[in-house]
């Protein structure tokens, strides 16, 4: 039994296509784990199966030793939270009401109003993503970046032990990207298991403790960024040529892409 999220030989087929082929990997508790790979690598599929959004066809997925896809959905919702790639929605809720959706798994259907604990979790999550002063604003009047921060806050309000995010930094400006990733890393440091899909490899290298690399449904590598990110891997998986540098302050890897020849 391990703390954290474990995939064992997870395979998914859709007709003839193999979306995931016997993928085994782990996202450890207390660490920020990045899921990287080009479009169509199977990142979203892997995350969705873990959260019960797609059926598990073969293999095993456990969280803290418990079977995650087979878990009662309400219990699972009290344990895990998911931030999807956001589609613009015509939602007539205020920012605070959107964040309060995260408390639904903790409320009984007979309960008329949120409990004080619900209110506290909502206010804390709003403050964590820097949106406290926007609490009364209508969601649909906010910018894409602000909406994305609220989605993260909604997930935080769920007080999850496992936090799964699909491209949470899309639509965000640089400063907001860094603040969201810093926040997620703090959550990991506080004991949560955080798994996030990222497109930006430099952000992944700068923030993640571990990287899982998927390519065409196969697991290519798992390990710390400095071990995983090599010119050979970038060429094989992303079909780009790049040099790896070191961040002068943190010593973490940084990727300098070679320009394709004309």
């Amino acid at each position, binding site marked *: 039994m391990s703390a954290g999220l474990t995939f064992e030989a997870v395979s998914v087929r859709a007709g003839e296509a193999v979306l995931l082929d016997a993928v085994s990997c782990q996202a450890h508790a207390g660490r920020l784990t990045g899921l990287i790979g080009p479009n169509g690598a199977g990142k979203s599929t892997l995350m969705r199966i873990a959260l019960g959004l797609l059926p598990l066809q073969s293999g095993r997925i456990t969280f803290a030793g418990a079977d995650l896809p087979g878990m009662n959905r309400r219990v699972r919702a009290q344990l895990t939270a*998911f931030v999807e790639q956001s589609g613009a929605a*015509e939602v007539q809720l205020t920012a605070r009401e959107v964040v309060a*959706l*995260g408390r*639904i798994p903790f409320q009984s*259907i007979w309960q008329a*109003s949120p409990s004080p604990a619900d209110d506290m979790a909502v206010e804390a999550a709003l403050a964590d993503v820097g949106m406290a002063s926007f609490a009364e604003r209508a969601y649909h009047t906010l910018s894409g970046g602000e909406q994305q921060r609220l989605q993260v806050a909604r997930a935080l309000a769920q007080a999850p032990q496992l936090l799964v995010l699909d491209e949470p930094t899309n639509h965000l400006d640089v400063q907001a990207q860094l603040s969201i990733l810093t926040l997620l890393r703090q959550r990991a440091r506080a004991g949560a298991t955080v798994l996030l899909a990222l497109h930006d490899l430099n952000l992944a290298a700068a923030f993640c403790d571990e990287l899982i690399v998927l390519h065409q449904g196969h697991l290519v590598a798992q390990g710390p960024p400095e071990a995983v990110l090599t010119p050979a891997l970038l060429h094989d998986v992303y079909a780009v040529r790049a040099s790896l540098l070191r961040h002068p302050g943190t010593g973490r890897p940084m990727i300098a892409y070679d320009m394709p020849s004309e």
Partner: protein
Amino acid sequence: MMRGPQIALSVGLWALLAASIVLAVTFGPADISPHEVWQTIAQHLGLPVQSGVTRLRDAIVWELRLPRVLVAAGIGAGLALCGAIMQALTRNPLADPYLLGLSSGASFGAVTFLLAGAALLMPVGAFLGAGAAMALTLLMTRLLGGATPSRAILAGIAVSALAAAATSFLIFWSATGDSYREILSWLMGSLSGTTWGDAGIVTGAVLLLGLPMLLAGRALDAFAFGDNAAATLGIDVVRLRWLLLGATALLTGALVAVGGAIGFVGLIIPHVVRLGTGSRHRLLLPVAMLLGASFMIWTDTAARSLFAPRELPVGIITALLGAPIFLLVLLRYRRAT
């Protein structure tokens, strides 16, 4: 625990409904005071009051006007609830039992049973028709390439047209003289001639189906960002959707069997309520029911009083009020996407 403004709102809406019931009963050719209405109701409920109301006036209140007002209230509450729930489940701000074809399907089912000589089973026919129309609309929406509001409306229009044509054909084929006129007036949505039996069907349906649906309020909130978001908040999306859509079809069927296809109430009321209370369904659903009840009482009172002694089908009034709101919502939605 309810919060202060919510308590005030709910007290206000119940007071509005009670006042609407009593005042609406006073409207009509025989001049009856609110006090007489109250005395009559109190006496029939077995409350200890000294009633000086004559038997004729008692009958006008108790046998003629009160059942009709209660039917109106039940239909308004039920349609507003069905509209709000369909809007949430399909994430379609234009969803309404009438616009998505349920009401026409229910009419077709009810007329079929009526003309087959099974007038008592009309609610069953209406439910079957509503269910079939809903299934057809959802299927066509999917065939059109997925659930966007405009596709769902187009599918609803097609299903409505089909059901209406089938209904007209049935009437043309088998109805004669008086029954023809009666059916036509009922089809346009009319509460004339409603009895305590009708009131029983409507209030029974609203209490048995509507009240349990209120419990789904918080789960419906979870649908704000779609099915996946709802599922990761612990909602059994498939089960809830089937339960609620089934209950919506049943309730619409019962309402249409009594009042005919009264359109736009399910569209108007939830949108008006959202302006005031926001979109949280825990609050939206009960408020929409209460406001829908009062709204329908007054539109029906207008329908029978405006051109007295002639009666306007109440569906004409709701359509007159609803069509502009439909356009406003449509324009707003177009701008937002």
